[in-house]
């Protein structure tokens, strides 16, 4: 019976493993203008399992800028960094933390 392929038992609802459906928890990287030509980069929506404190420490050292963690009531903890670090942060998150590029959104001009 098993020689007939069509009669093999296949569960069509089984998890195929290549799901792309987690659209809710994006990581947003934004930029804000300050006075003059100074800017501020915010990283919002990092997953909880990462230690933000250590990440900020690494980011500060890597990008040679200051930064801190801000607690927001709705959005949780947000990383703030001095200057336009959007592309660098993106690179760091994908290479060091192994986050997927499609889950990260870069905003701003």
């Amino acid at each position: 019976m098993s020689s007939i392929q069509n009669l093999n038992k296949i569960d069509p609802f089984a998890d195929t493993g290549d799901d792309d459906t987690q659209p809710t928890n994006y990581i947003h990287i934004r930029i804000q203008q300050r006075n003059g030509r100074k800017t501020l980069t915010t990283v919002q929506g990092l997953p909880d399992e990462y230690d933000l404190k250590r990440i900020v420490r690494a980011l500060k050292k890597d990008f040679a800028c200051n930064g801190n963690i801000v607690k927001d009531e709705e959005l949780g903890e947000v990383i703030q960094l001095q200057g336009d670090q959007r592309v660098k942060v993106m690179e760091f998150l994908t290479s060091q933390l192994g986050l997927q590029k499609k889950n990260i959104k870069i905003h701003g001009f």
Partner: protein
Amino acid sequence: MSVEETNVDLGFDPTLKKKKKKSTKTVEESNEATPEVDDVLSGLKKKKKKSKDSKSTPDADEINTDDVTDSLGELKLKKKKKKSSTPVPDDDFDKQLEKLGLDETNTTNTNTAETITDDDVNAQQSKYGLPYDGLLSRFFQILKKNNPELAGERSGTKFKIPPPVCQREGNKKTAFANVQEISEKLQRSPEHLISYLFAELGTSGSVDGQKRLIIKGRFQPKQLENVLRRYIIEYVTCKTCKSINTQLKKESSNRLFFLVCNSCGSTRSVSSIKTGFSAQIGKRKKM
């Protein structure tokens, strides 16, 4: 049967490949049957025919009818002849052919609206069979002539959005002069576009009396163009057909925004604009 008759008949004869092939075959057979043709020649023909009939036919024809050069008209003529009169002696046949050949070539050129290139292709076809490259280029020529949009040519419906016009308003503000115009082009409400701009740029602003948008912060036109581009990709273009002719609708039942394409009718949901986190800049919060 007379010359006029054949001419009338030929008027109906379209230049179809199938018919042509048929005609060539019949001609060959007749030639073989006639006693005037040399035995050697006929033998050659037979051999050739077995291998490739389309290739062999024009050679044989050329040998038989010296004067007529235009193979196309000639072939057509012969076919008609065969149908109407088989027992005609070969001498008369050839003479008539010559006459008709001359007449016929003229008539075909005037009657049928075929271009010179088409004729060339036909001649080639009868000589060498059907080369793929030639067929392909001919197909695309015809396709381009008749319906160019299928041949990959865009029919001028590409939307053009005017570039954003920016002026500095004082030291710290930017005036975006043609928001109104751009939002009309995109068929979106200016409020929607403005709220997206503010969310993306992380600033705030207002619309002044001349319907210009005043944004806090200094922005170059190029920066605004980038943001506009992203807005168009997310909220204007249809993902299925790349059309820009879309509508943004708010579903009243689930309070979600849907993008409905006017040209292909597809629908997709779009996320509402979220401002996200904005850091405290300047003065500290009063505790």
